[in-house]
């Protein structure tokens, strides 16, 4: 069975700066369960890319294995995608990025894909400050293998199978903060208003941008006893504050309510405005960790932008690679030629 979306375009559909409609950013028809949180995340990615007027072919979508990892087929149909192997998206993304620093890399993973089988790769992509957007669609379970608890399931949380999870949960945002991620956010698939600007900020950020999106699995883990179900999340989420993302070269046109407290200019010149509650700086990593833990202790889920360091140096900078994409270099740049080889031969005589 193939799922190609029928191409029908309404004449009055809004277009972005590039003249593209939202349709241009869509992918094949989703095959996920109706109501699956992951579809909402795809929609948010489409919205963010549309609004930022990103040329779809400049994006590479990379994922592992799982229901969540299937979703890159369902957005940005004009982008190349790579559905790799379970838990290994970060290494494929690292290689892809090293080959061509000029594209935008969007990695999509699940909580099984990232917090269990892929925990090592996640950790190392993070500490390398790979320039990519890394989205985990976190449902606290293994959707594709029919609902087993994942490593992000909270203690006591129970899925459809019924037994409360006895093991400590891995908090991916806390981990990302500890490992040196330079943009860390948490959101909820059901909160598009919050998620879209977070994705936009992540796309504009230079460095490793991590978003843990709680994305309920309606089929296996949307029970009243689950802490990753729609009901629980809606009732227990708190936001760090309201966030606006202003892309580079755009005038700030909206009237900001008095009292927004922070403004962060990203690497490419775009600006994040944060209407924040507490006095802690969004650039304070320790404070972010404290806030995540504090909310967890109170049984609350802290969402929003937790931390950003707009001045970080991404992997290419650390490695000192040329500005041109490595994959675009040809023989003239890469092959030292026979004369150099003569000298090398002589050094072995």
């Amino acid at each position, binding site marked *: 069975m193939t799922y190609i979306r029928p191409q029908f375009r309404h004449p009055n559909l809004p277009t972005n700066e590039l003249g593209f409609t939202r349709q241009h950013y869509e992918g094949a028809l989703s095959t996920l369960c109706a109501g699956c949180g992951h579809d909402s995340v795809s929609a948010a990615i489409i919205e963010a890319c549309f609004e930022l007027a990103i040329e779809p072919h400049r994006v590479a979508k990379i994922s592992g294995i799982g229901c969540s990892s299937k979703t890159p087929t369902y957005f940005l149909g004009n982008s190349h995608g*790579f*559905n790799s192997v379970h838990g290994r998206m970060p*290494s494929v993304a690292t290689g892809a990025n090293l080959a061509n620093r000029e594209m935008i890399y969007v990695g999509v993973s699940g909580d099984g894909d990232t917090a269990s089988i892929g925990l090592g790769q996640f950790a190392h992509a993070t500490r390398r400050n790979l320039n990519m957007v890394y989205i985990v669609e976190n449902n606290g379970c293994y959707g594709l293998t029919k609902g087993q608890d994942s490593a992000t399931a909270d203690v006591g949380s129970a899925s459809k199978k019924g037994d409360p999870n006895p093991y400590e949960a891995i908090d991916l945002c806390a981990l990302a903060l500890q490992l040196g991620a330079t943009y860390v956010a948490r959101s909820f698939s059901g909160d598009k208003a919050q998620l879209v600007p977070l994705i936009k900020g992540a796309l504009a950020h230079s460095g490793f941008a991590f978003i843990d999106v709680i994305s309920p699995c309606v089929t296996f883990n949307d029970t009243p006893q689950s802490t990753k179900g729609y009901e629980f999340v809606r009732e227990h989420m708190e936001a760090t504050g309201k966030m606006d993302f202003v892309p580079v070269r755009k005038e700030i046109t909206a009237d900001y309510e008095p009292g927004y407290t922070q403004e962060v200019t990203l690497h490419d010149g775009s600006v994040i405005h944060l209407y924040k509650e507490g006095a802690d700086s969004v650039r304070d990593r320790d404070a972010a960790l404290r806030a995540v833990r504090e909310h967890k202790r109170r049984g609350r889920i802290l969402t929003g932008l937790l931390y950003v360091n707009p001045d970080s140096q991404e992997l290419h900078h650390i490695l000192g690679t040329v500005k041109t994409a490595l994959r675009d270099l040809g023989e003239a740049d890469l092959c*030292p030629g026979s004369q150099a080889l003569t000298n090398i031969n002589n050094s072995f*005589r």
Partner: protein
Amino acid sequence: MKTIKGVNDFVIRFANVNGTGSASANNMFAKAIFRMGIPVSPKNIFPSNIQGLPTWYEVRINDQGYTGRRGGVDAVVCMNPQSMAKDIRDLEAGGYCIYDNTKPLDLRMVRDDIHFIGLPLTEICRKEYTQARQRQLFKNVIYVGALAALLDIEFGVLKDLVGEQFKGKEKLIAPNIHALELGYQYAREHYKCPLGIRVERRNVVGDRILMEGNAALALGAIYGGATVAGWYPITPSTSVVEEFEKYCGRLRIDPGTGQKKFAIAQAEDELAAIGLAIGACWNGARAFTATSGPGLSLMSEFLGLAYFAEVPVVLFDIQRAGPSTGMPTRTQQSDVLAAAYASHGDTRHVLLFPATPKECFDMGALSFDLADRLQTPVIVLSDLDLGMNDNLSEPLQWDDSRQYDRGKVLSATQLDELSGRFGRYLDVDGDGICYRTYPGTHPAKGSFFTRGTSRDEYAVYTEDGDAYQRNMERLLGKWETAKSLVPAPELHPARKATSDGVLFFGTSTASTLEALDLLREENIHLDGLRIRAFPFSDAVLEFIDAHDRIFVIEQNRDGQLRKLLIGECDINPRKLQALTYYAGMPITARYIRDAIRSGMGGGQVVPMRRQTAGVKP
């Protein structure tokens, strides 16, 4: 008493303790003989340890040009009390034992059929040097000086080598030459020089070079246009990436900005290392990873993905003795089957088998063309012996007019000109190889989804069994195409017509060719065929068809190449006799000669299970 005699034809072994600085002195010894125009083949036999365990350096000197291991030791330099008893026992009758006689020799070690040559190395050092480290280091230089006298090595050549070694640290030149002289003079004064074995300047090295296969592979990757390397350290592959980095630092720096035209990522493990290489290749770069057995096992899931999703990638596997951690610093050719069929499902990979540093370079560069052309993993199977020992080799060569073969890749213009729908897995040319596009090529055309799940010709996910099978059949068609693209086997015909043959590959080559010469002297004639790649080209089959009895020589227990031949070419197993050696040292010419000789006597060569027990390599 018998005395081994020979000019430019003997084997000398240095028995040292690792971490004592013997390596550079021993290298200088081998290089000096090489500089005198005489072929040498040094082999390092080292422990998986950083300091304190026994290590050996075995140098074969042979002006006939035989560079494989011969078997047997004619002279030993005993610098390690721990291994001394065995080192002396292993010496051929009539051979020479050079040892430190500061303390008298343990009587239990004395043999009356060998020559003992004592040098008071500890005492000389005690008198000459005050610091412990100096005493330790110069001891090595002093015995090299003594060997110069004992074996007739030209002293001027050694002096030149010292000068080159300490270029930039000129202060060290004089003391090192002094140490050489101390040894030289002592030997001169106390022994009749030279010994029965000695060297004499020849002109048979020609323009050949002495280098490690790993450095040649690294250079092959540079010349072949690799820009991205992902790796995880493991002996004996580590130096491939280290050399890649070293040479890139000289050859791939943008002169204007000082920026790098390459990227190396030391990954968290081998899964990530190959994932990284695959990601880079998928995105249009040339990328590789280097590993050894344990890493190959870890990479297998990803190799299956690259095979099935048709992503080019290059893997250098420098084999060592398995299974598991096995003997991590000993050599073997035992990853043949694991590499050929790495990963689950019906998977198969292109393999290349280099035998010399020049071939490491050639195949290193070629592997990228092949991977791009065939859109599949290419695995170069080297080993510890080739990779980490200085091997005598033809010089490396590059044709400046050579262009990289990037395979079937559609550009934006080609996509615009395309009539009809782009099908990533559509076999338009009938050779099983389809057209791909790099990400980001065209704003509206040519994008597709790469996946390890089944898909149709247009890269659309499908669970339709017919589409799946069509695709699997096409991959077989591509495999057929590969047969004509990989390096052809190399024929070594006997001088007389014969129905007997030998098949061999990689580092078994030099010893095998020497064994064939030795057998010819006994009027035993065999045709030889060196296999250079998998899939096997038709010439391999023709060779097997043309002979009644064929020995398959390889350095593993199970006769892996033989199994591969039987399975892939549908050959009667009785026709192929396994000749295996796998004790971790390079296979020797004498071992092969003896095994073939007795195998010709009738039936099985040597019972497989007992083959190495008690056999001295």
